[in-house]
């Protein structure tokens, strides 16, 4: 068959049908927009499930003493909250955004491998359900912390193999998603869309996808070793058989440190997309942003043992991992200064997506600074496994990744649905979230510095006041997110009724291709490649 005929066939294909009718559409769809929506809806559902678990934790910690739950169940909650938020909420939400936006931003008709795209979503659902089902098993859900350290994790009851298989499924799903994203970016770009003309969201996802392919198999290997240690008499991590439990920690953090950048790099990408639009300026330092992202990704592979300073390491090792970790502050600093410089002397307006993005820049920087504090090996001995580390990584995930996901939803919802969200409610949601998230997490710095250990359902009475404040913040933050759910549903159902232009935001079409398309987006877009590539972001 000649190439000309093939092209014609394809063309024909794409124009002939819209979405399937009925529910079956969502099960068999291979359309990148449908799958993007599925990922986002699923992530939001998991966000509420994981959030409910967080509220169980904060309710128990509202006062000293044991109030509501058994200590074992409490530990299951901290473990499952983390696993569900990481693998069920934040990662899938960004994959959802990638599915929706990458083809639109690079002028491609769809993802490169649409059928695999469908499969990776449904594997994610299977994996997450398997993980959630461990809550109802004999012996309870895993309660070892999300790091699944042996020998503690090997004491898990019937849930252990199920939790491990769910990690396998989630890993395969992420790897398939990552392969799809790389193939789309490498092979599906519109003519003229060179790599260094791609919007930063696309760049950050390209790098994230490579991280995922490199690390998810390592994690799968580590949990497989746990599985064989428990059921097939291997001794990878069992000292009695000649193994070493510390080895698990090395393998886990070889995965685990890049994993936290899997959650933050796409966050950087979305922030770099939104801030220029509302500052009405090109992004400051585009190429330095690209190189900074790549440097952070590279550095993430050589700093893992900073999670293990207290495990025992020669001084030379502590020094190496300390300095290597500090290096990460340089490319990250480049990014923060670039965002600030983008806003500098811009004609800024403060719609909801921009408010969330500015809060991200400020609060993420704070989370970054506490990370820098902990990179100092001798100080880390005090912070290790206290609420200080809990405050640190929640600052880099909640008012960073989660806030940027909120910003992305407000930013692109009008484009996706053709309806405008309620700006007043959006701003109310922002202020409620921004204030309560600080009430929730800021006091945890104090608790940690004063020595309150994490992952324990009870605490000494001197920690009572700040725990109460933190719990109040948690409940306000949690219930504020119901407002977000309401706003999203209202927007899908017609929103404010305002007419939405194809640009939605003033001059947005100068920044990225999706704003040159009509709102709401038709089911198929860029069946013929765009003629002009926007260059404003340089």
């Amino acid at each position, binding site marked *: *068959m000649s*190439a000309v005929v*093939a*092209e014609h066939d*394809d063309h024909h294909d794409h124009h002939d049908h819209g979405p399937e009718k009925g529910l079956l559409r969502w099960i068999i769809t291979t359309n990148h927009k449908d799958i993007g929506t599925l990922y986002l809806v699923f992530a939001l559902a998991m966000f509420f499930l994981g959030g409910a678990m967080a509220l169980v934790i904060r309710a128990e910690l509202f006062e000293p003493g044991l109030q509501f739950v058994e200590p074992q169940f409490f530990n299951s909650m901290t473990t499952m909250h983390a696993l569900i938020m990481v693998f069920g909420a934040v990662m899938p939400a960004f994959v959802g955004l990638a599915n929706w936006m990458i083809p639109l931003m690079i002028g491609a*008709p769809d993802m*490169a*491998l649409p059928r695999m795209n469908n499969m990776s979503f449904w594997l994610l659902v299977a994996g997450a359900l398997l993980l959630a089902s461990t809550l109802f098993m004999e012996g309870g859900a895993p309660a070892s912390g999300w790091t699944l350290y042996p020998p503690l994790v090997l004491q898990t009851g019937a849930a252990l193999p199920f939790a491990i298989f769910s990690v396998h499924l989630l890993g395969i799903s992420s*790897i398939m998603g*990552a*392969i799809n994203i*790389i*193939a789309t970016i*490498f*092979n*599906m770009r519109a003519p003229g869309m060179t790599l260094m003309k791609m919007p930063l969201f696309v760049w950050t996802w390209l790098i994230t996808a490579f991280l995922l*392919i*490199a*690390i*998810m*198999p*390592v*994690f*799968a*290997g*580590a949990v497989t*070793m746990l599985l064989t240690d428990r059921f097939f*008499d291997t001794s*990878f991590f069992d*000292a*009695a*058989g*000649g193994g*070493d439990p*510390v*080895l698990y920690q*090395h*393998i886990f953090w*070889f995965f685990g440190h890049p994993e936290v950048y899997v959650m933050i790099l796409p966050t950087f990408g979305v922030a770099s997309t939104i801030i220029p639009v509302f500052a009405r300026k090109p992004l400051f330092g585009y190429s330095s942003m690209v190189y900074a992202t790549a440097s952070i990704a590279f550095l993430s592979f050589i700093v893992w043992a900073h999670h293990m300073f207290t495990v*025992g*390491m*020669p001084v030379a*090792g502590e020094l190496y991992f300390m300095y290597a970790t500090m290096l990460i502050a340089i490319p990250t600093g480049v990014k923060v200064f670039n965002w600030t410089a983008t806003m500098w002397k811009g004609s800024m307006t403060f719609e909801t997506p921009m408010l969330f993005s500015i809060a991200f820049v400020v609060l993420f920087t704070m989370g970054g600074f506490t990370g820098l504090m902990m990179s100092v090996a001798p100080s880390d001995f005090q912070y290790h496994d206290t609420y200080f580390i809990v405050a640190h990584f929640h600052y880099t995930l909640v008012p960073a990744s989660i806030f940027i996901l909120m910003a992305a939803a407000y930013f692109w919802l009008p484009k996706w649905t053709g309806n405008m969200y309620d700006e007043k409610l959006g701003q109310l949601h922002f202020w409620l979230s921004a204030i309560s998230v600080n009430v929730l997490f800021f006091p945890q710095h104090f608790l940690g510095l004063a020595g309150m250990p994490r992952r324990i359902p009870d605490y000494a009475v001197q920690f009572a006041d700040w725990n109460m404040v933190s719990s109040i913040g948690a409940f306000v933050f949690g219930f504020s997110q119901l407002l977000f759910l309401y706003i999203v549903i209202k927007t899908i159902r017609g929103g404010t009724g305002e007419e939405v232009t194809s640009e939605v935001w003033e001059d947005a079409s100068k920044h990225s291709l999706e704003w040159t398309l009509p709102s709401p987006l038709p089911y198929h877009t860029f069946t013929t490649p765009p003629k002009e590539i926007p260059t404003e972001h340089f």
Partner: protein
Amino acid sequence: MNDDTKQKNRKLVRNLVLIAVGMFGFGYVLVPIYDVFCDITGLNGKTASVAAAETAREVDESREVTVEFVTSLNQAAPMAFRAETYKMKVHPGQYYTVNFYAENLTDKPMIARAIPSITPGQAAEFFTKTQCFCFDEQSFEAHESKTMPVRFVVDPKLPEKYKTITLAYTFFDNTELTAKKQK
């Protein structure tokens, strides 16, 4: 999507899948790498698992190093386990023997294994044992107790900065594991 792009996609996907499979293997390769790395650097304080030959060494009478003994039980091991002394001062180059005492507290025979560890880890390569109950699995009859000698020498090349070496043993009840392996 034309044939050309499909071709390119196929090739790229194949390569990426290979990377993923390779990284799964890399996770397993980390196991021997870790062992070798620890062996060279003494990172995890593991000592040699076979007895060294007792050769005459030059004794450094001018120097004293404190050797401490720590005994512990893995939580599943129903045993009593202690060293006859908690610490002793030794001259590098001279051989010493210290007795350890272990007892099976159950009514059944037991196979147990002691895992040694040296702190600081980097001192491990300067600590040599010519006799140790940790080189083999130990079998105990019901309620049997044993006195087990450990003969060791501290290498005179031990860097000056190490004044104290701690030798820790943990006993693991390996009865079930050994039974399974013999099947």
